[in-house]
């Protein structure tokens, strides 16, 4: 019984961390920029595909490829933001949803055209392949990297937003765009960088999560719902909220796999509903009376 609980926790946290890394970028753009970007999954997919291509086809070192993947996703995010998405900031939520869904479709179709429908594997370096013995059980080494990366990302994101000047500019711009502009903050740069940051994080998630969420053209659509769930439960813009939400929901999903797998994702969504109803503004924010 105890081993089962330990298993549920370990596997659940590992799964949740992957969800978090992909979702945190969306939480930032959604929460801080109030822009619903459903093409976020496409950035994750882009990062993953770039890394896969670099390592498998060009023989690049895994860590370098990872860096390149993150930068590519960030760059594509920045370009899209500057050229197209910028015009949608003032539009309604529905318009943003629909446009970015259309964008995602085009991403999926392009990926299908360029790489075909097969799953893209990212060969892991020797350090990461193979299990690590934790004493109580073995855990794939790659999961440990994900865990560490997740913690690093959450701390770094929090620091960037709450402790740096850039963070101040971002929060000011979100609170009151006109006033921020009047104070001399370069709004365009701030938004562009924030968006690129979110996209880069998505790319990171795409690479690190490739073991769990295989890279294939429909990736951008398939996992979008999961990511949205994490963001909505965690509270938009709330980084530690997203972390808590991802870990919690990941554990619930894993528990249902161990205990009642016939019900599919029912418990995941039921948990999501309960959490949303209990804390509609985010997991770590008490609901206003």
């Amino acid at each position: 019984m105890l081993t089962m609980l330990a298993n549920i926790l370990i596997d659940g946290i590992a799964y949740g961390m992957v969800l978090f890394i992909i979702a945190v970028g969306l939480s930032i753009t959604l929460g801080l920029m109030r822009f619903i970007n459903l093409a976020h999954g496409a950035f994750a997919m882009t990062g993953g595909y770039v890394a896969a291509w670099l390592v498998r086809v060009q023989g690049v070192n895994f860590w370098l490829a990872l860096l390149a993947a993150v930068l590519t996703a960030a760059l594509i995010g920045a370009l899209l933001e500057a050229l197209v998405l910028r015009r949608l900031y003032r539009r309604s939520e529905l318009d943003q949803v629909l446009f970015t869904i259309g964008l995602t479709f085009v991403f999926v179709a392009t990926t299908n055209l360029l790489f075909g429908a097969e799953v893209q594997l990212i060969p892991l370096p020797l350090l990461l392949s193979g299990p690590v013995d934790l004493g109580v059980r073995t855990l794939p080494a790659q999961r440990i990297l994900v865990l560490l990366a997740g913690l690093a990302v959450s701390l770094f994101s929090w620091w960037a937003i709450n402790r740096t000047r850039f963070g101040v500019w971002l929060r000011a711009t979100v609170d009151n765009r006109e006033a921020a502009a009047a104070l001399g903050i370069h709004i365009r740069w701030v938004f562009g960088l924030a968006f690129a940051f979110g996209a880069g994080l998505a790319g990171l998630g795409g690479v690190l999560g490739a073991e769990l969420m295989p890279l294939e053209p429909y990736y951008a659509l398939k996992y979008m719902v999961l990511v949205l769930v994490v963001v909505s439960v965690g509270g938009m813009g709330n980084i530690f909220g997203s972390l808590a939400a991802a870990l919690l929901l990941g554990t619930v999903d894993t528990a249902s796999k161990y205990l009642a797998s016939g019900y599919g994702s029912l418990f995941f969504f039921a948990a999501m509903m309960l959490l949303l109803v209990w804390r509609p503004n985010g997991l770590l924010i008490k609901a206003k009376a």
Partner: protein
Amino acid sequence: MKPKLYITATVTMVAALLTATHAFAVDVKVGMIAPFSGPFAHYGKLFKDGAEAYIASQGGKLGGKTVQLIYRDTGGPNPGNTKNLVQELIVKDKVDYLGGFVFTPNAMAVAPLIQEAKVPTVIFNAATSQITEKSDYFVRSSYTLWQVTVPLAQHIYKQGTRKVVTAVTDYAPGVDAETAFKAEFTKLGGTVVESIRMPLPTTDFGPFAQRIKASGAQAVYTFLPGGPPNLGFVKAYTENGLKAAGVEFFGTAEMDEFDLQKFGDAAIGFTTSFHYSAAHDSPVNKAFIAALTKQSKDAVANYASVGAWDGMYIIGKMIEATGGQRDGDKAMAAARQLQWESPRGPVRIDAKTRHITQNVYLRKVERVGGVLINKEVLNFGQQVDHGLTK
């Protein structure tokens, strides 16, 4: 904007779209129902490659008649849409035969249509036993889960294993596989210690691998739908040390040639029971693979493309028997008598069930000449559809 103009513009466009048709003279029309878009689009391509390669190998004609393949995209398991597509194929395009069908619900949806219109329909892939019972005009060139699972269960028992855990994807074919295995294995005296159902959208198979380990079974019998879940499961199996713990891997279609190379050396030794291996050593199979590669550089020889290849053989024989005329009953009567050497081995259409009776082989994954293949190590002999005789 004035609604009237908006409406008029739309109506004009609608009329244009609806009348967009193209027709050219041809003797026989065959409708091909498969997913060509979406996550299962590779099936459509495999069918296309197999079917067109067969026609090309016969000199471009079947039974001496020109054949037109009309492809229709189902997108996935979508019975309502499939029914509409087939209705249109029958009523508007006036097809003589139908082929394809990856998913069971799609096949079930068209059963009443083909029954009424008497259109012989060859199932290239769908593997649920009861499909052929839904209409007299279904004939199957694929396989069923019962057909390949029963001999596997017998083999596992014979080799001394007594405790097995089943881990199947939670949808109809998976449940079919689980039922078939349990029925046969427990009948022989073995025990199925646990029956794990894995939700279809699962990506993280770690928990299931842990459950398999904890069950204390000596072997796991698994069924997965193909594609990313297969990779995920094999990865979880290896990463969680199941191989090292001595839990033997048994499956059916999981080591499909389409994805086989991706498993890497982790899959070596995996044992599956199936009706077709691209490594089958026969001149007919070699000719099949050659024809496929000629048709399309990246064509893959696997159970889907061979299902289409043999399916077109059946259609060709039906065309021959009816002289290219539309006669569903005569065609089905001819189909029931068919017996031939397919790339998979000797096959026969069962006159009563219209299912394909074929050899089922035990295969182990090996690395030969730098590539992974499913090496046939045992031939279970001709198997009928055990699901219908149970």
